[in-house]
């Protein structure tokens, strides 16, 4: 199984090499996609990595969503292509309207870098289909704006359509309903604030991110 996975780079991205390292380690073939380029080079799946896409002074993802690459990714997603947004990537996906809700500043107004415990809420998504419901995953978070917020109606929809895929065991940032990650209704677009790529190597403390990225690589395979 040798999936080509595109990793999008904006000028202020900084986790793209980390995502590529983890994906390659799991047997996929990652390649960089430059934000100003609308050609997705026939990749089987797309990862939008962490960082600060365009500095994100106004709002994370506010500028990124207009990039040529994002326009192509929106089409790709609408055609069922697997898309994963990690941290800043999650923020970009909500700004682009591929995922509902928004990510606000953390309650407590501090940047937070630490390992947290996640609980799998739904295994029905391109990111979680190899996990089991209720499973605990130890994965680091690293963000200032990870506080998931939406209207009450949206939250009810997310819940009734099983779109909440990962929650925090102990809410670090004020997210509604402890939300750490969600998927779209067709379950091929997922976003999460924690960084699975930082939990793929024994030397880095946890390997619980592997199962998520493996699921995603599998999903890319299924989608082809």
């Amino acid at each position, binding site marked *: 199984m040798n999936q080509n996975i595109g990793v999008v780079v904006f*000028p*202020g991205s*900084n*986790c793209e*090499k*980390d995502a590529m*390292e*983890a994906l390659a380690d799991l047997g996929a073939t990652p390649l960089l996609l430059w934000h*100003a380029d609308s050609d997705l080079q026939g990749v089987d799946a797309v990862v939008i990595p962490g*960082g*600060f896409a*365009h*500095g*994100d*002074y106004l709002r994370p993802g506010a500028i990124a969503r207009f990039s040529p690459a994002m326009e192509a990714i929106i089409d790709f997603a609408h055609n069922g292509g697997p898309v994963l947004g990690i941290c800043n990537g999650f923020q970009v996906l909500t700004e682009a309207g591929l995922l509902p809700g928004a990510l606000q500043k953390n309650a*407590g107004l*501090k*940047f*937070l*870098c*630490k390992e947290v415990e996640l609980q799998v809420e739904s295994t029905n998504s391109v990111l979680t289909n190899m996990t089991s419901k209720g499973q605990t995953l130890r994965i*680091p978070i*690293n963000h*200032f704006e990870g506080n998931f917020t939406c209207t009450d109606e949206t939250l009810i929809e997310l819940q009734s359509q099983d779109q909440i895929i990962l929650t925090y065991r102990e809410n670090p940032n004020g997210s509604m309903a402890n939300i750490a990650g969600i998927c779209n209704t067709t379950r091929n677009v997922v976003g999460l604030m924690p*960084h699975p*790529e*930082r939990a*793929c*190597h024994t*030397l*880095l403390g946890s390997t619980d991110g592997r199962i998520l990225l493996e699921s995603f690589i599998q999903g890319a395979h299924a989608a082809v």
Partner: protein
Amino acid sequence: MDDQLHRSLGLTDDELAKIIEILGRDPNHLELAMYSVMWSEHCSYKSSRIHLKRLPTEGKNVLVGPGENAGVIDVGDGIAIALRIESHNHPSYIEPYQGAATGVGGIIRDIFTMGARPIAIMDPLRFGPLEDARSRWVAEGVVSGISGYGNSVGVPNVGGEIVFDETYKGNPLVNVLCVGILPKERLVLGQASGIGNLAVLLGSTTGRDGIGGVSVLASAGFGDEEEDAEKRPSVQVGDPFEEKRLIEACLELLDEGLVVGIQDLGGAGLACAASETASRGGVGMDFNVSAVPQRESGMQPFEIMTSESQERMLAIVEPENLEQVFAICNKWEIRSSVVGKVTPSGALRIVDDFDGEVLGEVPAASLHEDAPLYERPISEPDDMDTAITDQATTLSGPEKIEDDLFDLLMSPQWATSQYDSQLFLNTVVGPGSNAAVLRLKHPTSGEDTGRGMALTTDGNHRWCAINPRIGSAMTVAESVLNLACVGAVPQALVNCLNFGNPENPVVMWQLSEAVDGMAEACNAFDLPVVGGNVSLYNESQGTNIDPTPIVGVIGLINDLSKAPPGLTWNDGDRIILLGPEANGLNGSAWAFMKGHRRGSLDPIDFDLHKRVCALTRDLVTKELVTGLHDISTGGLGVSAAEMAINSGVGCTLARTPDHIAFFSESPSRVILAVNPELLTEVEQLAAEYDVPHERIGLAHGEIFTVKNLLTVPVKDLQEKWDNRLSDALDGGTTQG
């Protein structure tokens, strides 16, 4: 010419005379402004240079020693590492967030100027006491500034220090160390060579921010509020997104071989970058001020040349590569403009258009090489003799020793959890342990070498206040021991010398002594000094800070297939204390807490220290210990408490007779947690290395017990440890 102008720019009459001698005429305003910033303390090291010469700088792995933007060492496998530390003390007192943020930005530029990708920063910090409102406000702003800039620019923060003490109340210390990695063959130096080459200014526009910043802010202490208000225009605002693109653009330019030299713009702005690149290359430069993109209208040439606007670089480019340089800059959305031409003359000529009026002309090298060199008067403090008789061991012991222990516990997590410490997937040991440990991956291929690098920063004003020479030596020794605790062999040292007003002979004595102590230790440990920074005038209202030399030391770990043991023990482990007997309380955190800030220090036994380090490294490499911790701030008491808190397992310590043994910080000591089955092997090894060792207790249960001294639940220790900073800082802070 207005004969007071040079004084208002901070130049002495003698310095003016020297300028006139160099030029053979009176300088004009622009020229005078350039000399004033370049000859400021911050840029010219005029008070410290003669002392710094005494530091050892040679080593077989040293590729670039002090004097360049950063030191560079060869770490094998075709990999080189650049490192440097710098202070941003004064700006951080005035505007903590931006002061600290721009400090991070500045040191990162020093690193990628060498062609290295910045991969880690560390932030040794010093603030006034937590009880002081303004100090809390400064601490909170500084930490969020470091967090805001560092995280966004994408360089992980892997360690540092955070210390609160009365001495920093009017003058905090914000030092930042940065480490970068590069393929050895790509090393570049900041020089312009090749007549006809072009100087291209990259990055931000130039504004009036920070005009005269180095001379105004870093070369004078603080006075009253009104004076501070006048320094306001010098405050700069950082733009980490610009810096991030600048890093990527510059590294791509270097990868493509499109620049012959590159130089960051820091203190003294364009005046410094233009003259430095020219004089290093033994050439001159015509510098066109009107080609500099300006943020504000009506800027004078002297303002343009001395502005310290952030996030700018000067690249030296061969004309035929210019188009490609522009293309890469456009890709990264970086402004780029040709502002200079390399000439054979040796002169830095400031022109208004390349064929327009000459606004100023000085020998480029004179701005650095002819900078004044002062051998300032030195004198020992008057009370040296009486201080020695004032021993902290004569203080009465604590009523309830557990309360004193509680007061010495402080987790840095409030700060460190605000920093991205994991980016690049290198961080095996992050903030909060003996030393940071990173995987060593090849900078271009990303291939893991299986080896590791270890980093530590240390400083101890308490020791240095008592005896700057021994204190500095002990500081270096502590760093070396910290590295040994993670199994690393030290390779190189950088330092930041934070001292008071150099015009005070006692301060100069402190500086001179500290340099000697550092040199002695570096020689003893075979550790080359590859760079550093001197920050003087750390004083407020006439009071100088305690001398605070900070060192950063990098080490290498040969086999990093497993994470080194940390501050932890298992239930049932035996607790061993390595090293000499505890000796006194002078300069300890406990003594300072009791208001005792004097006394004497015994010289460190370098031979013994080296044996302790070698043994410790061996124990770690051979996987003979569950966990370990060097004994430093707070003594055995705090080190053992930290192990208990970290592991959630208590202990019984049997052989700790009194508060002196419990809180003494005498050097060369390590606490080990050893599985009983390995005990004999550990003790044999200790005997082989001829290192004193003693079984002092047992790890077990949930209670922290020291026989005949104290009994407290580990969870109480944990609570004090966790909450100290958040209790003080999370409720909001004001400027006081």
